[in-house]
């Protein structure tokens, strides 16, 4: 491998020609990778590139189809996560596996050998977390903790095993910029102690900032091994995507039209003990505007979407207005008939039913708004399959949805292609209001830029677009106005040009009410 400083030390972990087949599909195809002691090694790649499959093999969750893994020079078979832990490999997953009703110490105890007392675990965890600058109260209930704190539990849980290699899967996707900075300091400490970190990400700036070496995957193969500090973001992106990514242009007419979507002092109680309640949310989206709502996951984004879409109508009509008509108590189809379109965050089982075909998934969102085109037979409500299939084909072509076969099941499409279809399904109606929650979550860079451009274009054509997103890059690409949601409360709305990342970070932490004056002073 053409990396710098190769001779210094022999690899802690070396992977040779590792392949994992799912049926005939090679999720990982002849991967070579080596991780040295005391380095932070980045694993870069788009969604579906094989990153998760590779680390699952390293952590014993999946067994490789062929190839070998060398640990400190010895060939090993990692048959289970506990075997991986015994070797000295720890892992922090992207999706946490924590019990919300238990305390921090109890959650940690669950992954340890039985027979260690809870108080000892609590003490060790507390000491360790402070030593690494990740303070944790071992007696706090997980349900009360922020996402960043929950991630600390996972990291401390991995560190308690005293691992030589720690694998982190997309750790910053749920963190505010400030929380991410603190995490990077911790990673620096681990590195200084001689531990290795395998850092999985698709965020190029982070990788350039903290990683010593990078291995880039695309379609299950290694497409590059480099020192990320010597590359440019665009050269790294090219290795990841295989071609240059189209740049989203938000320029164009930015004339504000009439108010199309409005929330007036919208409050809604939490439906489940662990949900977030919405508190006094006020927002206006004008025609021609893209309002982006930033925020760390789990701060009421889903609940806000549910209220705006009418999946869970609220108690008073007047708090939500579409095209200046009160709709708060109306259901989702009434709102669709008034020209609104909705794209929820979760693709499988919410925006689409995986087992059903694309044309059926078109009926899912548009059975009432396109009643005349899609249904026949009067009260019988016969579905006109030919009309629906034509429309599905039109959408697939307009959004460049790549699929196997004419009308495959939604579940067989990759995340990016399915998302393009789901967004295209709404755009096809030319909605005057579009509410989108996490439009490009888990979507490859090519599809993401396609979707973002489509959102910008829709606003340019005179619709009001509301984008709820955790991805700051995305927000700055598409937004004309920005607000931040934190603990169910929405900040003021700022023009996108007036906000910096730092300020958004502060707002994400819920700092607006208190530091409002200080910020204005700082801004001028």
């Amino acid at each position: 491998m053409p990396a710098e400083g190769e001779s210094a030390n022999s690899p802690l972990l070396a992977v040779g020609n590792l392949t994992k087949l799912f049926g005939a599909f090679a999720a990982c195809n002849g991967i070579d990778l080596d991780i040295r002691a005391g380095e932070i090694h980045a694993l870069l790649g788009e969604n579906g590139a094989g990153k998760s499959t590779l680390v699952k093999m390293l952590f014993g969750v999946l067994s490789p189809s062929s190839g070998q893994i060398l640990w400190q020079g010895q060939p090993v078979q990692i048959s289970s996560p506990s075997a991986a832990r015994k070797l000295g490999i720890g892992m922090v997953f992207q999706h946490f596996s924590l019990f919300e009703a238990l305390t921090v110490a109890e959650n940690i105890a669950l992954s340890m050998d039985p027979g260690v007392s809870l108080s000892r675990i609590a003490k060790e965890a507390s000491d360790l977390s402070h030593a690494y600058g990740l303070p944790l109260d071992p007696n706090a209930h997980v349900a009360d903790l922020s996402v960043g704190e929950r991630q600390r539990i996972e990291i401390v849980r991995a560190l308690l095993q005293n691992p030589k290699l720690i694998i982190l899967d997309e750790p910053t996707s749920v963190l505010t910029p400030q929380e991410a900075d603190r995490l990077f300091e911790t990673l620096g400490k681990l590195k200084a102690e001689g531990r290795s970190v395998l850092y999985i990400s698709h965020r190029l700036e982070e990788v350039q900032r903290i990683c010593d070496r990078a291995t880039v995957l695309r379609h299950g193969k290694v497409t590059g091994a480099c020192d990320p500090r010597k590359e440019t973001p665009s050269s790294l992106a090219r290795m990841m995507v295989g071609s240059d990514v189209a740049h989203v242009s938000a320029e164009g007419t930015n004339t504000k039209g009439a108010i199309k979507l409005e929330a007036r002092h919208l409050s809604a109680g939490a439906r489940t003990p662990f949900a977030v309640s919405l508190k006094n949310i006020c927002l206006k989206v004008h025609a021609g505007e893209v309002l982006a709502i930033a925020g760390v996951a789990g701060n009421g984004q889903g609940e806000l979407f549910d209220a705006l879409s009418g999946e869970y109508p609220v108690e008073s009509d007047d708090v939500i207005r579409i095209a200046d008509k009160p709709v708060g108590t109306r259901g989702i189809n009434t709102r669709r008939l008034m020209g609104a379109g909705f794209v929820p965050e979760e693709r499988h089982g919410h925006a689409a039913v995986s087992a059903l075909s694309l044309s059926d998934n078109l009926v899912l969102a548009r059975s009432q708004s396109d009643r005349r085109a899609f249904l026949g037979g009067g009260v019988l409500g016969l579905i006109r399959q030919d009309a629906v299939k034509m429309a599905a084909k039109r959408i697939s072509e307009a959004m460049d949805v790549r699929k196997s076969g004419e009308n495959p099941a939604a579940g067989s499409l990759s995340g990016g292609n399915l998302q393009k279809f789901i967004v295209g399904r709404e755009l096809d109606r030319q909605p005057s209001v579009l509410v989108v929650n996490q439009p490009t979550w888990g979507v490859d860079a090519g599809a993401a830029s396609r979707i973002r451009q489509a959102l910008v274009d829709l606003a340019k054509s005179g619709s009001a677009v509301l984008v709820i997103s955790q991805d700051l890059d995305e927000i700055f690409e598409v937004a004309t106005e920005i607000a931040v949601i934190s603990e169910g409360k929405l900040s003021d709305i700022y023009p996108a040009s007036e906000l910096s990342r730092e300020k958004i970070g502060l707002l994400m932490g819920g700092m607006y009410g208190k530091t409002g004056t200080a910020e204005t002073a700082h801004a001028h």
Partner: protein
Amino acid sequence: MRIELERRPEVSRLYSILSPFIALALTIFFGGIMFLLLGKDPVSALYSFFIEPLMEVWSLHELAIKAAPLILIAVGLSVCYRSNNWNIGAEGQFIMGAIAGSILPVVFYEWHSPLVLPLMMLLGMLGGALFAGIPAFLKAHLNTNEILSSLMLVYVAQLFLDWLVRGPWRNPGGMNFPETRTFDPITILPEMITSGRAHWGFGFAIIAAVLIWFMMRYTLKGFEITVLGQSERAGRFAGFSSRKMIWFSMLLSGALAGLAGIAEVSGAIQQLRPVISPGYGFTAIIVAFLGRLNPLGIVVAGLVLALTYLGGEAVQVSLQISDKPIKVFQGMLLFFVLSCDTLIHYKIRMMWFDLSDKPVGEVR
């Protein structure tokens, strides 16, 4: 070592058609071994089981009589199960339908009119639907588990019937036997064709199966059922109400079970007795899944299961054995059908680990 079920990337069309036949072949093979171990001639046993009931006109009629309630109930249940509502209490709805439909011939036995029979059928459907409405209400408004509530209501229905035929509805001229008066001829469901006993219950079953099949295949309502069964959240996104679906599916399946009940009583038994069903409501659950929750598949499955009942009786008579081996045989058939179906969608993978490989070989 651990065993994993791995989802196949593609389902073979050929094998999904062949699967029931492979299951049948395996059942015949292992069933033959069982009869051999019992010291009976497997060929004649299998002959009496599968072939004999199909050779005579009267037994074909019996087959239709047995299959009718199974199909009628299972078709309703398929709508419930497709929409993720687990109505296990069809047996109770069958009984309540029979009781409600019997009000006219038992209480108002002096009323003779061509209207009586259609009214009885409607009352039967109403009785079954109302009884299924209890678990529907409990689930829709109090979030109760419908599996438990519908199942427990079966015993309520059974005991209510028992009380009725021993108490208020007992036949005054019936020598104190626990039975109602026998139905007047005008209240008896007529035979479908003159060659035998099979009554219109079988006709109802076929009509219901075709109608429900049409609904599931072509209409928005059928689409709604499928979507809500796959994902309640996606259904909500589509603007479908899962609460209304609880009511719709439970009332529909209750009405069909009630119709099956009154058709059985009016067509075959012609009076109420303490026990009017050999467990049709429970067997229909098996029929529904054997038919892969497809109404047309359920017609076939209902006939096959009815055949195993008739065949089972025939074998008991011809080979002089108890009903236990017959139950084992029926169990084998179900086991092989379900496992063949599973293996179409999944393949089994054995994960072997080299335990001598010390550093990592230990598996907790």
